């Protein structure tokens, strides 16, 4: 449980270096200061990714690669194909052509439920929490990919099941502390305000001990203060937990504050790829957002 360990270290400030725990969750501990330059082997790579729905090419020949420890933002007007890329990585959609490589392995056609176990967790644009369960239960479901449940043993609630259960609960409590969710721990999602739901969904993704975190509009519907919180958290997630983040975001202030590189899309095609400043000054991007010959 190196995620839990890492968080504990963060909280207590006792950075003892290597984890003594069993290395089940290999949350990559690249040096936080790796920065934008060092591109050794990419964590995830999309090669000429395309998908068509009927006659519409929602994603058209898009290639990018994200390095370990990077914060990578995808921007673009509505319908540009941003969420479709996430759904392709989550294996909800079948790409028409192209390949997806994660940690050197081809994940273009693996089963969707294995994605989380491989180390990719995500949030959804319109919050897909389990409404009729408590925050705690939601986060525990986030641990599902780290569990190997056997229905028979669970019905008997064997000591092994109990031990596992307590281990998961411990890991979840660390995340609750990390994102300050203790106040809402036992509340049902259906009674929570929107902003809190966003944080719970982020927490649920972290519970899966991912190495790659996909955030679909983490700041949408949040006020300025909450958006700043999100920026801090994304920084912490990268620096303290060593998780690589790919996010879709419209809020350019958030994008330029946290991201190392930005991919701009329009109508499924790549417009620009570079640092936030480069992308923001790219004529094609400006034209896509403002229209006409700006």
């Amino acid at each position: 449980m190196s995620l839990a360990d890492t968080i504990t270290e963060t909280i207590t400030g006792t950075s003892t270096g290597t984890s003594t725990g069993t290395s089940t969750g290999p949350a990559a501990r690249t040096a936080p200061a790796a920065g934008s330059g060092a591109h050794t082997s990419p964590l995830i790579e999309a090669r000429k990714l395309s998908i068509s729905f009927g006659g519409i090419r929602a994603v058209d020949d898009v290639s990018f690669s994200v390095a370990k420890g990077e914060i990578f933002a995808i921007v673009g007007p509505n319908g540009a194909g941003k969420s479709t890329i996430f759904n392709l990585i989550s294996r909800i959609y079948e790409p028409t052509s192209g390949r997806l490589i994660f940690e050197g392995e081809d994940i273009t056609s693996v089963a969707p439920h294995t994605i989380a176990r491989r180390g990719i967790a995500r949030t959804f644009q319109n919050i897909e929490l389990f409404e009729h369960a408590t925050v705690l239960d939601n986060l525990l479901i986030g641990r599902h990919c780290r569990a190997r449940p056997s229905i028979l043993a669970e019905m008997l609630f064997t000591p092994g099941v109990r031990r596992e259960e307590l281990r998961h609960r411990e890991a979840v409590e660390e995340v609750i502390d990390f994102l300050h969710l203790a106040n809402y721990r036992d509340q049902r999602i259906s009674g929570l305000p929107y902003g809190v739901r966003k944080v719970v969904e982020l927490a649920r993704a972290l519970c899966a001990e991912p190495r790659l975190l996909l955030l679909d509009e983490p700041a949408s519907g949040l006020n300025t203060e909450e958006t700043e919180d999100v920026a801090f958290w994304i920084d912490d997630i990268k620096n303290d937990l060593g998780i690589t983040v790919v996010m879709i975001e419209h809020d350019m202030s958030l994008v330029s504050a946290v991201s190392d590189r930005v991919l701009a899309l329009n109508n499924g095609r790549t417009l620009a790829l570079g640092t936030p400043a480069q992308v923001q000054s790219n004529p094609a991007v400006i034209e896509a957002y403002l229209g006409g010959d700006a």
Partner: protein
Amino acid sequence: MRILFKTSYFEDIRLFQHGGQRFWYGLLVAAVLIAPLVLAEFYVGELTQVIILAIAGVGLMLLIGYTGLVSLGHGAFMAVGAYTNTYLITNGVPFLAALPAAGLAALLAGVIIAVPANRMSGIYLAIATLAFSQIVEQLIIRWEPVTRGFQGMPVPAPDLLGYKLTHGWQLYYLSLTMLMLVVLAAINLVRSPTGRALVAIRDSEISAQSLGVHLFRYKTAIFALSAAVTGLAGALIAHRMRFISPDAFNFLLSVQLLLMVVVGGLGSIHGAILGAIFVGGLPQVIALMRDHLPTAVARTPGLEPALFGLVLVLIVLFEPLGLYGRWLKIKAYFDFFPLYRRATFKRQRAYLKTERVR
């Protein structure tokens, strides 16, 4: 109001959250244990009926209340259990082997329906399971060499290692033991990763999948498990009926089972039990009321189904959370006594849902 101060993670998942619960559930167990000693034979029989329905209810609750898969065909699984059990016992298989075999047969039937059911949800699944129950009913009618068709089959008394259970109270204790085991297993399942995966499937399949829940595997497993538990209840109810024929397991039984979990309160084991008490007990209450009503009303044909329907409509209209939901509200009212607000259980506003991608 009781405030729980928890000092270990286990306190979140232990069976009894506090001493009060242990006391009240203990009292309940004591009450059902001594019930046959103080109640007349007839009422012991009725209680047995309620208990057996509750077993089926727990099975169905796991499927409908926890996983959100609606089945209108659970009467068929009861039939499969009842006929397997009766056929095996009649052919000399001991009861202790026939009972698990009945569960197993229902489990297999569950797997058969689960595989196509994985492609359906909501109303379509309900119709598919309804069709399945019709097929099973026809099968029982036509497969005369085994089921004796409309002639029906007498059910020999269960034989527990040479000890024949011929009395009503013996079947009562047998059923009660089964119910307790089933409830314990269900509670254990619900507080484990699998139980949470089921809830995840119910509330959002897409995010369940992206968190690593294998939808096909879990849906199939819970269908099979639910069918198996219902099959066990079917085996027991055969012993209670003493004679089984196809019309005992018709569409109405499936509807009764569905009503049980809805009236009891979806998404709670309590709900299954309360629903069973309701469905099993209401006919008796109506029968008792009959004596105190004016003759003109009491003699009206169809009084029973009419009242049954009326109560149901009222419950669905005014208490969508079911009997258990009502109980939670009453409890909350007293817990927060002067501070209870009417809106406590109001459903909060729903936010946009991600488009369904499959």
